[in-house]
């Protein structure tokens, strides 16, 4: 059996446009006045057709429309993509079809259309529950708008999640805890809670480099916030099943689990990444990053800019990196099978003694503390 079957098979569709660029964001997102949705739809379909020849005979577990802001897509565009995917791959009975949405009123008006197109889960970028902070994050919606959009989404979909960013400028531990309680009282069964990351090449990154991004919580405060987040969410039955993701049992995002369980996923759209097992070998794929370049490349035959076979070691390292993000951890036998080599025993022992990981039933799991320090844990375990 090919290794990817342990994780399943998903399709990621990247929509690279937003209404405005947020100052913290380094996703592949662009602001553009006129987008020819017909042309984009044609391009996505062409890419699906290209992949269909190479990936026949698989069952599709999930589709994810990510961005950018996919809630700027016309429902028709979403519909034709889902339709074509269904023609190519039989859908799993419980297929999850998610779409990332910004919580503006315009978007909310399209929710029903997405539902009719086949979308069954929405993830909304609410980001903060007070207007001052939303403004500082450069968001163009208010809390009231976000709540209204969220309510509409709930009427259209059974599964609605939302994202918050914490450890924001000027945020105290108390303020975050209060906000989190509020968020949990709104939440249905899934929440993504991201600690603000200052990324190079973003407006925040530049300001930070110039010493102008003031009042960011100190590292220790940020650590306290992370641990408080885990605790409070657990009180509401929303366990942290991944570093930044919380869900009631069974409500986990299946699509993201494909990544973390190191399944296969096809990625289409500008800058989309994929992992595909072809003839028994895992391949990393990438597509052209710039929207215009991608469109042209697709017109000329394929949007893919890279397709590299991964060595066993690299595939195993990726499984390690992804798998350890999950509370369920990773299967050590599967790791050894992939890499042809056990994890370094002495380092594992050290990490167990430090309380960073646990080993039971041949599964390696990062503890809460270990997950907060996952990069340090991984630096120890990644084989040189």
């Amino acid at each position: 059996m090919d290794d990817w079957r342990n994780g399943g098979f998903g399709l990621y569709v990247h929509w690279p446009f937003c209404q405005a660029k947020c100052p913290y964001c380094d996703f592949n997102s662009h602001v553009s006045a006129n987008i020819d949705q017909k042309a984009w739809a044609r391009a996505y379909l062409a890419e699906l057709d290209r992949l269909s020849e190479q990936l026949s005979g698989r069952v599709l577990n999930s589709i994810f429309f990510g961005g950018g802001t996919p809630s700027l897509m016309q429902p028709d565009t979403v519909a034709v993509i889902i339709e074509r995917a269904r023609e190519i791959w039989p859908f799993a009975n419980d297929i999850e079809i998610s779409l990332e949405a910004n919580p503006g009123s315009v978007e909310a008006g399209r929710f029903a259309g997405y539902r009719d197109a086949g979308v069954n889960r929405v993830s909304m970028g609410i980001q903060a529950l007070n207007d001052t902070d939303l403004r500082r994050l450069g968001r163009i919606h208010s809390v009231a708008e976000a709540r209204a959009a969220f309510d509409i989404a709930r009427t259209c979909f059974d599964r609605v999640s939302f994202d918050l960013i914490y450890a924001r400028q000027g945020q105290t531990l108390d303020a975050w805890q209060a906000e989190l309680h509020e968020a949990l009282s709104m939440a249905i069964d899934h929440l993504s809670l991201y600690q603000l990351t200052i990324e190079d090449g973003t407006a925040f990154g530049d300001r930070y480099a110039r010493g102008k991004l003031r009042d960011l919580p100190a590292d220790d405060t940020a650590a306290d916030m992370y641990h408080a987040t885990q605790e409070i969410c657990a009180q509401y039955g929303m366990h942290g099943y991944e570093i930044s993701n919380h869900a009631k049992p069974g409500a986990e995002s299946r699509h993201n689990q494909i990544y973390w369980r190191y399944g296969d996923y096809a990625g289409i759209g500008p800058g989309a990444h994929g992992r595909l097992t072809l003839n028994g070998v895992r391949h990393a794929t990438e597509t052209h990053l710039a929207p215009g370049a991608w469109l042209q490349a697709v017109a000329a035959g394929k949007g893919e800019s890279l397709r590299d076979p991964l060595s066993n070691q690299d595939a195993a390292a990726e499984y390690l990196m992804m798998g350890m993000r999950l509370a369920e951890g990773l299967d050590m036998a599967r790791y050894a099978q992939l890499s042809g080599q056990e994890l370094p025993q002495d380092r594992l022992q050290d990490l167990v003694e430090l309380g960073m990981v646990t080993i039971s039933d041949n599964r390696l799991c990062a503890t809460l503390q270990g997950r907060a320090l996952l990069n340090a844990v991984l630096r120890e375990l990644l084989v040189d």
Partner: protein
Amino acid sequence: MTDLAKIRNFSIVAHIDHGKSTLADRLIQETGTVQDRDMKEQLLDSMDIERERGITIKANTVRIDYVANDGETYVLNLIDTPGHVDFAYEVSRSMRAVEGSLLVVDSTQGVEAQTLANVYQAIEADHEIVPVLNKIDLPASDCDRVAEQIEDVIGIDASGAIQVSAKTGQGIRETLEAIVTQLPAPKGERDAPLKAMLVDSWYDAYLGVIVLVRIMDGVLKKGMRVKFMSNNTLHHVDRIGVFRPAMQVVDELGPGEIGFLTASIKQVRDTRVGDTITNDRNGCEKALPGFKPAQPVVFCGLFPVDSAEFEDLRDAIDKLALNDASFSFEMETSAALGFGFRCGFLGLLHLEVIRDRIEREYNIELITTAPSVIYHVYMKDGEMIELHNPADMPDMSKVDHMEEPRIKATIMVPDEYLGDVLKLCQDRRGIQEDLTYAGSRAMAVYDLPLNEVVFDFYDRLKSVTKGYASFDYQMTGYRQDNLVKMSILVNDEPVDALSTMVHRDRAEMRGRAMCEKLKDLIPRHMFKIPIQAAIGGKVIARETLSALRKDVTAKCYGGDATRKRKLLDKQKAGKKKMRQFGKVDIPQEAFISALKMDN
């Protein structure tokens, strides 16, 4: 061969940056020694490091033909000497090969510490000295004041000082005339047996060892067999020549001349600077007095960052030592750093130059451990051990007492910074020996322990005086003091490469400073790390580096595992650059930075 009366041999002495190299360039250019198209700046500084840092490390020689105002053609031999204190030995021996010196003083700056140190060497070598006031093109130039200062501080007549701009060329003719009219011609007997001074030697990949000689008596010819008197070795001279400044072969060299010979000599170590070269038979009877070989005074460990590069490092060090007899080395193993070399240098600049060359020319990344001096450890059984490395310190209970090397330091500084300089010297256990003023500049002379100076004294001096102080020193001898070895323990394990010798009274302060520094230098780990300073078994300072609490990537970019992998690989590479002590990773720069003091 040149008529003795038509030869002038000279050197140029100057404080760094006063314009020695530029003046040499102008002299060479003015006399047409080098075609204009071949002229480049700082012509005599041939090593990359010399050009880059603007310092002269190796003495260089050039022979200039000059048609003087009297219509005669003179041969001028210039030996350009290094200005830095580390290479003072190089200056002193070059001076013995010439009869006079141009004393170059920047007329905007005045006399500085190295001006003094170098001019005293010239006086000691009985030189006729011609003062040259340089940089007169600059508005801040004040020739009267500086001439007065030369007379006051150095005590030589500066009334006839030549006013020069090495930049514009003004005064260059006058300088050449002064060399001819004011400096003495060399003396020597053409018919006597050969007597030549071995001034310097270096290795050339094509020609083997090149020997710079000054002929005192007799004639050196190609094909001769000569004897090196210090060890009675015989050599067949296969080439002789002069520097213009490129090598030019000549048939013979007579008394008073300066040039080179090659004789199929394989190693610089087979030649001894200051040696006397004579005929193999019926040679001269009395050898020249010779020079004291330069002794390394500062020691440190050099270890490859990548331990797999140890053999490459050995190779690099062997090659560098071929050309630098003053650089010593022996293999060293450190529990912490693995295999490396304990190396001896003439001073810190010398250390930096060698380290730079290994890193650059041989492309080996190095960890440099704390520089140390040689301590004399007197054991209770009467034995004396020369301690080059604190890690080798014998058990204190067997030690009777210890001595450390001292120096006499001369510091010249504008008045307004004097207070800070005196405090710095005091803090470094200095004893004031003299304090005088020349105009608005003060000259302080201190007796200081060398170990307080080798490390960051010069940096500190520069920083407290905004670069306006100048500094020079000479070794004076050993003195007993209350010295102890201070160990550093990281996570309860001693890190040998961080051990230092300190004065007992200053141990607590230094220990605290080092622990604090290390706390900043060592990255946080998954566990908390005690950092301690100890003398023997007694902890004298302690800091705790708290545990890392959060280090995780919050977001996952739509399955972009590559991005995350790259980030981790980068971190991993960073980790690899550190050294592991027990379970703690210490960054390589910590070994030096931990010792830097902020006062």
